[in-house]
C-alpha cells in the first residue's frame, strides 16, 4: 500500500520517499546534538533540520500532505531541540539521555499501552468500539493488587485481574452487542463504573492505609546480557509482562491476518451481514472479542499495579486506556504499527520522567508530554486511517 504505486509517479524520488527522508534527516539532526556524539555547535544539526523541512515542504507540494507536514513539524522540532541541546549543560544532557535506560523506561511505560491497544484492536476488528479500555485497565490494576494480596502470589493477582477485566467487558458486550447501545456512551459509563467500583472497594478494604507494602510483584526476567552496551541496559532486567506484551503483538497479528478464525473475526467487523450469511455468529464473535479485549486491558492494568508502581491508588490508569485507544487508531488497526505508536508514547513518558533535571520548576509541565504527543499524533496521522467498516454499529438480524 505504498503511495508510489497509487500515484504511479515516474520521478526518481516520490514525495512519500522525500517525506520519509526528511523525517530521517530530522532524527539525525537531533541525534548529533545529544549524547554520545554531543556536537557542541548547532550548525550541523540546523543544516540537516532545515534540509528535512525543505524535503517535507516539497513532499507537501507533491500532494503528500500528511507525511510531508509531519516531516516539516519534526524538522522544526529537531531544529529547536538541537539549538536547546547545544546550549544546555553537557553533564545534564548525559544524565537525561542515557539511551539504554531511556529504552528500558520506554518499554515499561509502553507495556500497559500495548496490552490495552491490542485489546482495543481485537474488539474493534470485530466491530465493537471499546472506549472502556480505561475502566477495564483500572479494574485490572485494582483486582490485580487485591488478588495478589489475598492469594499471596502475583499469579493469583494476574488471574483475578483478568477475571475482573472479563467481567467488565461482559457488561460492555451485553450493552453494545445484545442491547445495541451506543458503544461510546456505554463505554464511557463503564469507565465511570470502574472508577466507582474500584474506588469503593479500595476505600472499603484498604481504607486510608493503601495497599500493603509487601504486595507480591510480577517477576522480572534477568538475561545474561548485562555487559553489552545499550542492549544490556535496555533489556537485561525487564518485567515478565513487558516480554508478554511484546510477544502478544505478533500473536494477535498472526491470528487476525493469517488464520481462518481471524478472517472470520475481521469479516464480522467489516461486514456483519455477509459474515452472518456465511454462517458466522456475529453475536458470539463480538462477545468473545470484547471479553478478550477486557482481559488484555486488565493485564495492562495488573502490570501497572503489581509490576510497575507496586501499589494501587484511585484512578491510577490516568488516561492510559484512552492513550492506548489513540495508539490503536493512529496505528491504523494493525498490531505492528500500533506497537510503534505505543513505543512513541512510552518514549515521551520516559523522557517526561527525566527532563526535570533541566528545570525543576517546569517538571510538572513536562508531564503533559505524553498527552500532547497523543493529541498531535491523533490529529496528524489519524485522518488517513480507516476503521473496520462496521466498527461501532450494532448489528440487527432481519
Amino acid at each position: 500500500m505504498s503511495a508510489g504505486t497509487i500515484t504511479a509517479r515516474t520521478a526518481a524520488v516520490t514525495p512519500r520517499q522525500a517525506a520519509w527522508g526528511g523525517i530521517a534527516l530530522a532524527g539525525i539532526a537531533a541525534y548529533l546534538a545529544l549524547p554520545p556524539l554531543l556536537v557542541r555547535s548547532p550548525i550541523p544539526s540546523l543544516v540537516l533540520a532545515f534540509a528535512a523541512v525543505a524535503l517535507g515542504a516539497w513532499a507537501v507540494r507533491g500532494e503528500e500532505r500528511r507525511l510531508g507536514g509531519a516531516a516539516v513539524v519534526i524538522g522544526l522540532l529537531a531544529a529547536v531541540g538541537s539549538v536547546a541541546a547545544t546550549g544546555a549543560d553537557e553533564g545534564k544532557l548525559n544524565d537525561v539521555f542515557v539511551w539504554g535506560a531511556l529504552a528500558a523506561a520506554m518499554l515499561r511505560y509502553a507495556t500497559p499501552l500495548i496490552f490495552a491497544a491490542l485489546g482495543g484492536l481485537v474488539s474493534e476488528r470485530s466491530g465493537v468500539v471499546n472506549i472502556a479500555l480505561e475502566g477495564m485497565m483500572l479494574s485490572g490494576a485494582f483486582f490485580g493488587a487485591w488478588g495478589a494480596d489475598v492469594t499471596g502470589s502475583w499469579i493469583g493477582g494476574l488471574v483475578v485481574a483478568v477475571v475482573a477485566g472479563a467481567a467488565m467487558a461482559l457488561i460492555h458486550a451485553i450493552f453494545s452487542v445484545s442491547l445495541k447501545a451506543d458503544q461510546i456512551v456505554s463505554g464511557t459509563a463503564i469507565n465511570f463504573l470502574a472508577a466507582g467500583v474500584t474506588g469503593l472497594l479500595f476505600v472499603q478494604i484498604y481504607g486510608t492505609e493503601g495497599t500493603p507494602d509487601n504486595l507480591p510483584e510480577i517477576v522480572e526476567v534477568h538475561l545474561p546480557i548485562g555487559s553489552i552496551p545499550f542492549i544490556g541496559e535496555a533489556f537485561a532486567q525487564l518485567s515478565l509482562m513487558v516480554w508478554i506484551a511484546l510477544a502478544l503483538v505478533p500473536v494477535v497479528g498472526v491470528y487476525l491476518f493469517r488464520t481462518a478464525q481471524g478472517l472470520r473475526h475481521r469479516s464480522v467487523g467489516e461486514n456483519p451481514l455477509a459474515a452472518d450469511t456465511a454462517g458466522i455468529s456475529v453475536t458470539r464473535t463480538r462477545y468473545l472479542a470484547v471479553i478478550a479485549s477486557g482481559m488484555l486491558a486488565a493485564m495492562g492494568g495488573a502490570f501497572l499495579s503489581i509490576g510497575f508502581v507496586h501499589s494501587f491508588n484511585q484512578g491510577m490508569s490516568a488516561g492510559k486506556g484512552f492513550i492506548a485507544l489513540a495508539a490503536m487508531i493512529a496505528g491504523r488497526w494493525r498490531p505492528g504499527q500500533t506497537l510503534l505508536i505505543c513505543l512513541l508514547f512510552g518514549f515521551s513518558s520516559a523522557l517526561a520522567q527525566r527532563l526535570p533535571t533541566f528545570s525543576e520548576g517546569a517538571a510538572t509541565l513536562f508531564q503533559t508530554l505524553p498527552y500532547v504527543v497523543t493529541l498531535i499524533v491523533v490529529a496528524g496521522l489519524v485522518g488517513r486511517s480507516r476503521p473496520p467498516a462496521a466498527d461501532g454499529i450494532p448489528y440487527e438480524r432481519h
Partner: protein
Amino acid sequence: VSLSAPGDAPPPEPGGTVTVASRLGGFMRSGGVLVPVLTAFLAFLAGGVVVLATGANPLSTYKAIFEGSGLNWLFPWVTGDDRTLAALNLQQTLIITTPLILLGLAVAIAFRAGLFNIGGQGQFNVGAMAAVFIATRMHGLPGVLHILLAIAAAMAAGGLWAGIAGFLRARTGANEVISTIMLNYTAIYLGLYLFGQGGPLQNDTDKSVPVSADIAQNAHLPVFWGDPELQGAHVGIFIALLGALLAWVLLERSVAGYRIKAVGFNPDAAEYGGISSGGQIIRAMLICGALAGLAGSLDILGWQFRVATNDIQISQLGFYGIAIALLGRNTPGGTVLAALLFGALLNGTSVRNLDPAVFDPALASNLTYIIQGLIVLLVSAPIIGTKLLGLIPGRKAPPKEEHRVVAVDRSEAA
C-alpha cells in the same frame, strides 16, 4: 410520545454518517420525562444494593443524603432548627448545582451537534484558571467590571480549549473523544504547574501551599440567600439559569441552532443543504467550551475564591456533565433538573453533610460515581427506556424503531 420532546428530526438515511445524536434518538424521542425519571430511579435502586453490600442501610443512607442536600427545606412541615439547617444545606446544593447546569449544557449542545464532549472537566479547569488570574490581578477595577472581565476571560479560555478539539475534528478528523480527554489531562498538569510550588501563579504569602492567591474582595459574586460568611447561595445560579435559557433559544428558536442540530443529525444531508459541517462543529465546540469555562469562573468567583492544585486534580464536576446531559435528554430544561439532582447528591454525600455513622463519605463519593455510571449505561441503550416504559400499567411501549444496518462513512471521522 410527548410532542414537546425535542429532537424529532428524521432518523439518518441509509448511507449517511451516523452520529451519537442520531443513534440516541430513540431515547431522546420516547416517553417524555418518564424514561429519565425511571432511569434515575433504577440507578438509585442499584446504588442502594451497593450500599447494602458495604454493610450499611440503604434507606437511612438515602434519607441522610436527602437531608444533607437540603431539599427537605421544600417541605412546609420541616420547621425550627431543622428548617435553618435545611436552608444552609440547600444553599450549598445550589452552589454546586450552578456549575453542573453549565457543564451539562456543555455536553448537551455538543451532543446535539453529533459530538461527544468529554472535555468539560478540562474546559472547566482552564476557565477557573483564567478567572482566578484576572480576579487576583486587576485590583483597580470596579466590582461589576472585574467580575465581567474574569467571566469573559474564563469563557474565552474554555472556548479555546474546546475549540482546539473542534478545530482538529473539523480539519483533520481527529476524534473529539480522544482529543478532549488528552486536553483534560493537559489542563490538569498546566494547573499543577501554574499554581504548584514555585509556579508562576502561586500565592505570595505561603510558598509551601500549592494554591493561587485569593481573588479580590470586589470580584466575589454577591450572595442572595443566606450568610456570605457561611457561604450562602450566590447569584451564579441565575447566570447558569440564564445560560440554560439562552441555550434553549439557541437550540429551539434560532437558525444557528438549527444548523448545529442539522449537522448533528445528518452531516451529509446538512452539507447537501449548504451547511458546512466543519464550521458547525467548531462553532458548537466553542459554545460548549465557553459554557464550561463560565462554570469554572462562577465556581471561583462565587465559592472557591482561589484555585488549589488539589482541587484541580480531584475535581470530577465536568464528568458529571455527561450524565446530567444524558439524563436531561440533552435539553436545557432537562439539564437544569438533572443538574439539581446531581448537585443534591454531591452535596448530600459530602464529608460535611453525611454522618459517617450512617455511611462513610469516602465510600459515598464512589457511590456517586457508580450511580452516575449506571445512569449513563442505562441511557446508552434506548431499548431499555422503551422496555421500562412498557412496564408501566396502562402505557403501551412505543413501537420498536426499525434498526437499519447502514454503511458508515467514517473516512473523515475517527
